[in-house]
């Protein structure tokens, strides 16, 4: 059984692994029931809804997509332009490379920058994971995963360890990334100085001069007003000792994961038309002061479902009488832990195999 099958039937967070658990040969069509086999092809005018997910049908051979798009949607000239920008971005860590962002079949703010970066990078052998606030099963994540399954015929997964490319909106997976993985961030506002200095000409000059005093003043004003640095997400970092960079609105909890990560981190901002990057094994230092050192969020309790400590938790409101629970924001991490037998205080089912 493949991820595509499960996702089509029921959008549960317990998607099975790509490649199936029972050792079935999933590259073939053996697992598809005859009914599905009949339906999956669809017609040229109206592609089957199944054709969008995973290795269904013959989508892996380019040009065979029912919709007739180029591989990974973008035309080749656009991909070359983005690829050149990506190489420059890697060569100048943290510097925002302008690029000719295209209109994508989704609104700005839904990850058009990340999608364009992924489209330029992805190949037929990649395995794609997409998360939205840590979750594999929200609308944005499911849509983007389907988009690439449909236009590039790539395999998709929800498992962090299985993915070669992970596109993310606002989280870095809890499972440590490995050498060779590519993390693609969707970025709304790439310019860390934008809210301090609205003029692009000025912010560009400040970056050119490495003049980041404004940012330190902002953090200082936080301390003056609140007694501590109150910035909790999109917390500015200094990359490779030179450029100050926005890590996109990830919680500052995730900032330490960027530091010397073995994975390549690419950032795409579609509306703002910028691409930037952090190469593997590169220093990423959160800005702070000697007497007010950088600190990540701490949570009083472990995840209510899987009992994990030291992970980023989401609050879930349970009723209108103040009931609430805190659960892992990273749905794959939480599911894997429960599958491994870890239980939190509010995990309901004894098997611990699925979410309520």
């Amino acid at each position, binding site marked *: 059984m493949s991820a595509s099958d499960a996702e089509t039937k029921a959008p549960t967070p317990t998607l099975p692994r790509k490649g199936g658990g029972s050792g079935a040969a999933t590259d073939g069509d053996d697992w598809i029931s005859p009914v599905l086999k009949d339906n999956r092809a669809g017609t040229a005018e109206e592609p089957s809804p199944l054709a969008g997910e995973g290795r269904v049908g013959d989508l892996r051979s*380019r040009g065979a997509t029912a919709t007739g798009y180029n591989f990974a949607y973008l035309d*080749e000239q656009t991909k070359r332009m983005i690829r*050149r920008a990506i190489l420059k971005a890697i060569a100048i860590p943290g510097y925002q490379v302008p690029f000719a962002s295209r209109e994508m079949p989704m609104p700005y703010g839904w990850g058009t920058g990340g999608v364009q970066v992924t489209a330029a990078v992805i190949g037929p052998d990649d395995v794609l994971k997409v998360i939205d606030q840590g979750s594999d099963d929200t609308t944005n994540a499911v849509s983007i995963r389907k988009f690439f399954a449909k236009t590039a015929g790539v395999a998709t997964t929800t498992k962090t360890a299985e993915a070669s490319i992970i596109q993310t909106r606002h989280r870095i997976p809890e499972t440590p990334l490995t050498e*060779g993985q590519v993390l693609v961030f969707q970025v709304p506002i790439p310019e860390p100085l934008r809210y301090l200095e609205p003029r692009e000409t000025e912010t560009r000059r400040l970056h050119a001069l490495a003049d980041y005093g404004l940012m330190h003043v902002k953090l200082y004003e936080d301390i003056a007003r609140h007694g501590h640095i109150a910035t909790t997400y999109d917390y500015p970092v200094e990359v490779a000792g030179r450029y100050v960079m926005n890590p996109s609105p990830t919680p500052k909890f995730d900032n330490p994961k960027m530091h010397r990560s073995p994975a390549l981190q690419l950032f795409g901002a579609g509306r703002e038309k910028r691409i930037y990057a952090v*190469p*593997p094994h590169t220093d990423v230092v959160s800005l702070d002061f000697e007497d007010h050192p950088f600190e990540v969020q701490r949570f009083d309790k472990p995840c209510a479902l899987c009992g994990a400590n030291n992970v980023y938790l989401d609050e879930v409101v349970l009723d209108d009488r103040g009931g609430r629970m805190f659960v892992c924001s990273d749905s794959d991490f939480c599911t894997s832990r429960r599958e491994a037998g870890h239980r939190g205080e509010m995990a309901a089912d004894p098997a611990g195999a699925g979410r309520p």
Partner: protein
Amino acid sequence: MLAADSTGFADPVLDAQSTFRTLMDAFARPGSVQRLAPRLVPPAGLAIGLAAVALALCDHETAVWLDPPLAADREVAAYLAFHTGAGLTTDPREAAFALVSDLAALPPFGSFSVGDDAYPDRSTTIVAAVSGLAEAGALRLAGPGIDGERQLGVAPWPAHLTGELAENRALFPRGVDLVLVAPQAVAALPRTTRIVEAR
């Protein structure tokens, strides 16, 4: 004139993707030797790695500078014009990409575009053919993309390039990026890479 037996990528879309991906890995891990086995037939005077990088990254938006041996070969110009549509330039400062067949005769990095402080990305990427690359050798590298230190052997390695790369590093964020292609292999030395030691 276009050489009759030369071809572009066997699959223009997927081969461009895999060539780019190899280059991206090379840039992300400076000095690592990546396997590059493009499916194309360049004209006799153009190294296959140079052809692959040009076809993957160059088009009408990028000016290409050819070093004198390549510039003298009309088949090379015809091949690049036909397969990429890139315009050639004789001024290295204008070039987005420089294709170099003879690394020893490479003009000083300073004669190419190194960008400016506001737009350091407006710089030349120098792609040079060498006869061999190895993950052990005279150059010891450090910097972003490298966990600790990495060795790179380039044959032939013109000794003066070590000093030039150090000067290039000192310009950061300005500077040129260097891509080395050997038959079946590629390695990159982006401007961030420091050469710790050269024996």
